Structures are given as C-alpha cells and as structure tokens.
C-alpha cells in the first residue's frame, strides 16, 4: 500500500470517526427537557441599549386593535413565555408573587412602595400633565425626586385616586411591574413652579409655565373641604423612557423581545385580571417600556403603568354603562340594534348598580367573567386560551377575603362604605372567576412525587366547586431524546389525590417519568383530558420538570 493510499484511508477513517462522534453527540435542540428546566427566570441575554423611544398614536392604536385584529393571523398557540411546568418565569415583564410566594396581607397592601412618598418641603412643579383626561402635573420633591401627580376630577372625590391606589396593589401582587403610587394632599400655596418648567400650549409649542397654568390644572381637580387637593403621586420609573408596548408582535429593535406579545401569558391573563378589576382601558398608552441597566447590561423593562382605569369610574366621570360589557364597536351587535330600533337589549342596559360615588358602576351579581370585555380587544386578550385563563384564575383566587378588604382600604376612602362596596364586589367577581375558569379544564395542580414514589396533587377547582369523584393516574417512563413513553403498570384510580407509583420506576439519576392524571367528574367532562406531568429523578428525589395542561392543543 502506498503512502498516498494510507493517507487517503487514514483521512477517510478520521472523517468517518468524526461524523460518527458528531452523530452520537446529543444535540441540545432535540431533548424535551433541558438541565435547567423548569426555567425560573426568562433571560435577557442581549444588550438592548439601541432601543429607541416610539410614539404610539392613541387613535391608531384604538383603530388598529378595534378593526384590524392585529396579531391574529397566526394560529392561537400555547403561551410562549411559560416554562416547561406551565408557569411564567420571572422576567422583564413579570415577577411571581401571589400564588407562588408566601405574600402576607402586609406585603400586598405595601405593594410596590419602597419609601414614604414625596419628601416633605417645597414641591416644585415642572410641567402640567399632557396625556389622559385626569388633571395633574409633574413635580420634584424636596430631595429632587420626580413625581407624576394625578388628581380626582372635579365632582368625583376620591374616585380616580382611590382606584389607582387599590389597583396598583392588586396588579403588583399579580406580578406586574408597577409604579410606586402614594396618596398625597397638596396645598397649592406650598407649590412652586420650577424655573425650567414648560407647558405645552394648543399650538404644540412649549413656553415657560406660569402660576395660572397651575391654577388651570387645579380648577379641573376636586378640592377638599380643607382647601387641599387629594392626589396620587407616582414615582418616576427608573431608566430611559421608551414609550409603551403593544399587545401584539415584538419591538423590532429590542433583541431580547422574541416572544410575540399576543403569545405572552402575562398579557393574555389580563383577560381574567381585567375582568376582575374592570380594567377596561387596555391600550399601549397605559403601558410603559423603560431601558434599565441590569447586571451591567441594558435591558427593557415593561410596566403596566396606568391601572387606574378600573372598577366603576374613569379619570373624570363614572364609567359608561356598557363599559366592561361591550367593545367600543361590535359589528353584529351594531347591526342588530340598528335593525330592531334598539330593542336588541344587552345585560348592561338593565343591570343594577350600587353606585357609590367613589367606586362608580362596579358590580358582581350579573358579572360574567367569560363575557367581560375591555373597550378595545387586544390581540393578547383575544388569544387567551383555557390554560392561560386557568393560570390567571388561580392567582385571582389566591387573594383571600381579608387580603381583598385590606387592599380596598388602601384606597383611603373617606367613607368606609366605599371600601366595603369595593371589596364586596371584588370578592364576588373573584369567586365567579374561579367558578368559570378553574372548572373549565382539568384542574389538577401542585403535583409532587416524593422519594417514596408517592404522587400527590390537588384540585384547584375545589375552591369553586365540588372536587372530582375520582382520579385516574397512568405512569410511563419517558425518553427525553426521542419523546417516547413506555407505560409502567396499569392505570390506577384514586379518590384522595395521592397514589403510590407502580413498581418499576427508573432509579438512575436523570431518568424521567411521565404521569398522566385525569379527573373523573360527570359535571365536568373536560376534566377527563389528563394533565401530563414529568418528573426527573435527581440526587435528592423527584423533581417536576414538565407539566402540560392542554397536551393535545
């Protein structure tokens, strides 16, 4: 054999060996569960310092969402911001709090607040509020901290400020990034106007702010009997202002924003959270993106900034009767009303409201969470699936009666009856949400497999209805690379939500078992669709690494 031939054969052998080695190397992309599953935090791996501020026109945003149905051209898929156990990891959008952390009532009524509000002393107004209907202005406190001050509209004492304070705590507990809002009582004589203060006038130009401009703001605000003005002071959100976020698609200049917003569970869940609190004004203008530095890297943080459009009042008046019941435009309803001279009646036209002046038109008797609607449907709202609603409903149900009453009291209403009305309705609506969404699909939750191979779980629907009469559990080994399941034993039926695994569970570290749990309840046929749970054996026992509540879809 010549040298040339030896070389060729050797080379080919080496190539073959490399190819063989390469084919034998497990590709990360092929496994169902990675070593770090379930992910506890959604990473922001890229520097986002190049993101630019955008101005989203209110009318375009309204029209696009109302008529064009953006983000709906792709199929409705499982939420893409969830981890493998169907939970939403912490992220620049969301922080797990109620239902996950052991939040106390004290935690919740403190909410996002980290301090005591504007520093006492001279408060210097820097410009009047330029967006929205509520009267307000921006000011710097005695320490130079910037605050956005928002008043109750004239004729509606405590309505707007109370709603902001209460909703602020609720949405913080639910996990959204929130502004720090503090109740303040402003004495006009203690305000000064900053030398640099500018006001935008009708021409669109800006000029130096005058005291008459401040008077103009206060003229539209509700004055208290003692001459002060009750207001909410919202602390300036840290970071560079980037404008709001849309409820569909992604920001094209944010490298970390890879999940279309309509497929984010945290935004889909506003279908449930919005229904609970009557958050009818879901628009980009009520959101806020900010560029912050985190771990030495610029990333975008997404705030649900303005949650004051909740309960039964708006920024400057009671809610319209149809708000929460209909979109601003619905073609079919419009046509039916047109053809019937208005006699095609809807529930909002006859529902009874206990109109407390500070709470407005907010009720829980006729409320149906599945029928609730914001003014304008967002793509995320439309695409919410049963598992998204289930996830959200569990968080709503995690608010106890006492917690809700404590949160309502943070509205600091002069009339205690206002807080009571608000809490009563929130409790009514919470319970209806539980009945509607916790029972809609298989409600098996909190699955654990202990080191003694005993499976335990709970039924989330027990908060809203009778528990299932029995559960059917099937076991299998699971091949993480191929995705194949191999049954172990036969199906086991249990009634007490715990069952011993059959013999033959794999014992080697890293092995995965698949457990399917179906609930047997004649009143809820959808519960027969099993929840698929995956446990991986670790050094100390079994760990839940996967959960699919709607595995077929």
């Amino acid at each position, binding site marked *: 054999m010549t040298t040339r031939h030896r070389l060729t054969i050797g080379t080919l052998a080496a190539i073959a060996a490399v190819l063989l080695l390469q084919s034998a190397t497990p590709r990360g992309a092929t496994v169902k569960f990675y070593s770090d599953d379930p992910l506890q935090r959604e990473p922001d791996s890229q520097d986002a310092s190049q993101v630019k501020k955008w101005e989203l026109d209110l009318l375009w945003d309204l029209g696009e969402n109302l008529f064009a149905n953006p983000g709906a051209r792709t199929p409705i898929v499982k939420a893409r911001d969830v981890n493998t156990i169907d939970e939403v990891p912490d992220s620049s959008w969301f922080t797990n709090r109620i239902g996950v952390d052991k939040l106390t009532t004290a935690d919740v009524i403190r909410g996002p607040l980290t301090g005591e509000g504007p520093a006492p002393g001279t408060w210097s107004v820097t410009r009047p509020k330029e967006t929205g209907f509520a009267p307000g202005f921006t000011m710097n406190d005695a320490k130079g901290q910037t605050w956005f001050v928002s008043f109750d509209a004239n004729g509606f004492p405590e309505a707007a400020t109370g709603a902001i304070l209460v909703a602020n705590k609720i949405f913080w507990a639910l996990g959204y990034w929130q502004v720090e809002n503090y109740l303040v009582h402003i004495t006009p004589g203690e305000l000064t106007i900053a030398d640099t203060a500018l006001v935008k006038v009708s*021409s*669109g130009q800006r000029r130096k702010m005058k005291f008459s401009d401040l008077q103009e703001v206060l003229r539209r605000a509700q004055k208290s009997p003692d001459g002060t003005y009750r207001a909410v002071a919202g602390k300036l959100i840290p970071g560079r202002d980037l404008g709001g976020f849309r409820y569909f698609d992604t920001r094209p200049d944010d490298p970390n924003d890879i999940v279309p917003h309509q497929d984010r569970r945290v935004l889909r869940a506003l279908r449930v959270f919005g229904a609970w609190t009557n958050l009818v004004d879901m628009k980009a203008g009520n959101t806020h993106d900010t560029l912050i530095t985190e771990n030495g890297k610029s990333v975008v943080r997404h705030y649900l900034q303005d949650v004051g459009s909740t309960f039964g009042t708006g920024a400057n008046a009671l809610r319209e009767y149809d708000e929460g019941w209909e979109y*601003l435009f619905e073609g079919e309803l419009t046509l039916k009303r047109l053809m019937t001279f208005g006699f095609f009646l809807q529930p909002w036209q006859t529902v009874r409201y206990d109109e407390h002046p500070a709470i407005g038109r907010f009720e829980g008797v006729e409320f149906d969470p599945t029928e609730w609607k914001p003014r304008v449907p967002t793509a995320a709202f439309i695409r919410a699936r049963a598992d998204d609603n289930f996830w959200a409903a569990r968080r709503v149900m995690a608010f106890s009666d006492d917690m809700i009453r404590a949160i309502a009291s943070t509205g600091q209403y002069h009339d205690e009856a206002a807080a009571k009305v608000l809490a009563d309705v929130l409790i009514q609506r919470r319970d209806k949400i539980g009945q509607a969404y916790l029972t809609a699909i298989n409600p098996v939750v909190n699955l654990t497999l202990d080191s003694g191979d005993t499976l335990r779980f709970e039924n989330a629907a027990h908060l809203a209805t009778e528990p299932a009469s029995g559960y059917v559990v099937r076991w299998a080994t699971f091949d993480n690379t191929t995705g194949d399941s191999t049954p172990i034993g036969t199906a086991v039926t249990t009634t007490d939500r715990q069952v011993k695994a059959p013999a033959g569970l794999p014992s080697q570290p890293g092995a995965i078992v698949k457990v399917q749990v179906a609930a047997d309840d004649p009143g809820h046929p959808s519960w027969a669709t099993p929840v698929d749970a995956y446990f991986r054996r670790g050094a100390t026992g079994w760990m839940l690494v996967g959960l699919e509540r709607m595995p077929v879809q």
Partner: protein
Amino acid sequence: MRSRARGFTVCFAVCVLVCVPAWVKAQETRADEIAAQQARKAAELKPYQPGTAERWVTKTHRNLIELPSGVYPYFGSVYSGGGFTLGAGYRDYYGDRTHVDLKGLYSIENYKLIEVSTDSWGQSHGRLDLHGRFGWRDATQVAFYGIGNETPAERSAFRMKQGYFGGDLALRPGKYSMFGAGVMYEDFTMESGSGSDPSIEEVHTPETAPGLGVNPKYMHSWVSAGIDSRPAAGYARRGGLYEVRYLNYADQDHTYTFDRVEGEVVQHIPILRETWVISLHGLVKTTLDDNDNVPYFLMPALGSGRTLRAYPSWRFRDRQSLLMSGEFRWIPNRLGLDMALFYDTGKVAHQWDDLSFRGLKSDVGIGVRFHTPLATPLRIEVAKGSEGFNLVFSANAAF
C-alpha cells in the same frame, strides 16, 4: 511526513467544519436556547417604521385634535343651499390658545367664502371665548320661493355677496349658564342669481320680495343668554339648551333696520341608559316691530337639513317663524352611530299673531348619524313632506 501532516490538516479542518457548527447550534440549557434566539434577533435589529396608514392617521389625528399651526382641511358651509363644500385653512398661533386663521371654502354650486379670523379660546379659566373675523362670501344662487307659508314650489334665485367684519364673545360663568354678544358690520350686494332657475327680479317685485334691488349695509349686533346642560352642542344624548337671543340689524341708511328675538329649546331625554333618546327642538324667530322693513334675504326661513328637512333650503320665508322637531333616536353603536326617526313641523308668518299651530308644514323621516363624542361630522337623512322626498347630507347635528 509531509503527506501525514497534510492528512492531519485535512482531518482537523473536517473536524472544525463538522463539529464547530454543531457546538454552536447545540444548546445545553433552556437559557442557552433562548439566548441563541435573542442573539439571532440582535443580528437583524431594525427601528420601528410605521406604515403609511399609521403615519396618515397619526398626522390627521394631530391636526384634528391638537389644532396645530399650519395648513389644515376645512369642512364647513358657505351658505345654506350651497351643496357639497370643501376648503382649507392656515392657522398660526400667537398666544397659548389664540390663533389667526385664513380659510377658504368652495362648493359645487360655486359658492365661495374666504375669511381671516382670530380666535381665543378658554380665557378666564376656560369661561370666555373671543372671536374676531373679516371675510367675504359669495352665494351665487340662493333660493327664493316668495314670502309666506303657502308659496308655490316655484324657485327663483338671487346672488348674495357679503363682506363682513366684527367680533363676538361667549361667556360661561357657571357650569350651565351661557351668555353671548357680538357685533358685525355686514355689507350686502345683491345680484341676479346664476344657475338654471330664473333670477329673482324676473319673477318678483319689491312688493313680493321686500328689499329687492337694495344693497344694505348693516351694523348687526346681538346678545344672548341661556342654559346649556348638553355635553356638547355638536352631539348630545342628554341635557338641554334653553336660550334667548336678541338681534339688531341697523341699516346704515335707516331704511331696513329691524330687531328680532329668537328663542330656542333643545331637550334630550335619555331612556334606559341612553338606549333610546327622545330629542325635542323648538325654535321661534320673530321680528319685533311690524313696521320695520326686513329685506327678503334676511327673513327667518324654514327648509333645509336643520329645520323642515323634507323641504329645500329657504323654502319658506317671512317675518316670523316657528319650528318644532321631535326625534326618536336609537343608538346602534355608542362610539359613533346614531339612528333617528324624526318629525318636523313649522310655519312662517307675517305677523306674530299668525304664528299659530294652524297651517303647519310637516315632514317625517329617518336618518343615520356618524358622530364623535363632541361632533356630528356626517348626517344622512331622508325626509318626506307634502312636496315629496328630500335627501339631506350634513356635517352638523340636526339640533
């Protein structure tokens, strides 16, 4: 040796070519997988570019809502009966809420208007509006059917050129109370009507058309007082207007001087949370002194999209007028669509005593209105009266 070395080199290159992409592509963790997707997006970042429609809506919204300085489209009417009208204006601010405007309108009936005005809104804590204007109007074929309530439907036409200069103010001292006052110098030049109808002087004489042939110059002044609880004059489903106006037309030759008093009532009665609205309107105009001379073209008139809607503009003229309208409105969509069944009735009369409920002219109709919270930019109605059908297109509320 060289061959062996070359073999190793080839092997190494193959290893690199085959394995490196695999290492790069493979993610061992979920975090790696997400990071890889983010890295791919980072390589193709682009700034947000609004589409043509979004840019257009944003610009239009800003121009219509914020009223910035610059050129803007102007929708209005030169004079009743002028037909479809388009226009444009240029606005320039010289105060916070004070601007000067130059605007023009042109209609398909060749009506023309050009006006320079200055407007100052919301002075005195939002209670006072001030306006000054200087302009010229040319209505080429204004209808004239004669004087009285029983004139035949035989139309003639006249041309009215009007130069004007003056100002007015509107004061709202309380939540609902309102007062107004104004003075305007008005120079009328009356000419033969254009168009297919006979000109007024071919059909009428000064006896049948008082003031025919004269070109009066007026100092026109007025005051008004009222209560207005409507959310907006341009569109309302609740509230009402109760207003009295006094007008003086002082002819510079003292021949055609006259005084007029007008009373207007509007009341919107919502039913079942504004599912339906009963809207009522009453308007009476009376010339105070029976001995005053009122030229034909300044007499109160009925007929048009805001009075007797089945009748053409200026169908009935005389020294007094009475109008009553009632609407049954239903609201297919609160954002912007109203429907209405309506009934109008009214008459004109020579003397106040003749302004009775006998001999009223009436019509019925149905209408659709596209509105905003504050205005009714499009109202389309079909009305049927004793002289047939009339189709109304209007950019204003009926009342």
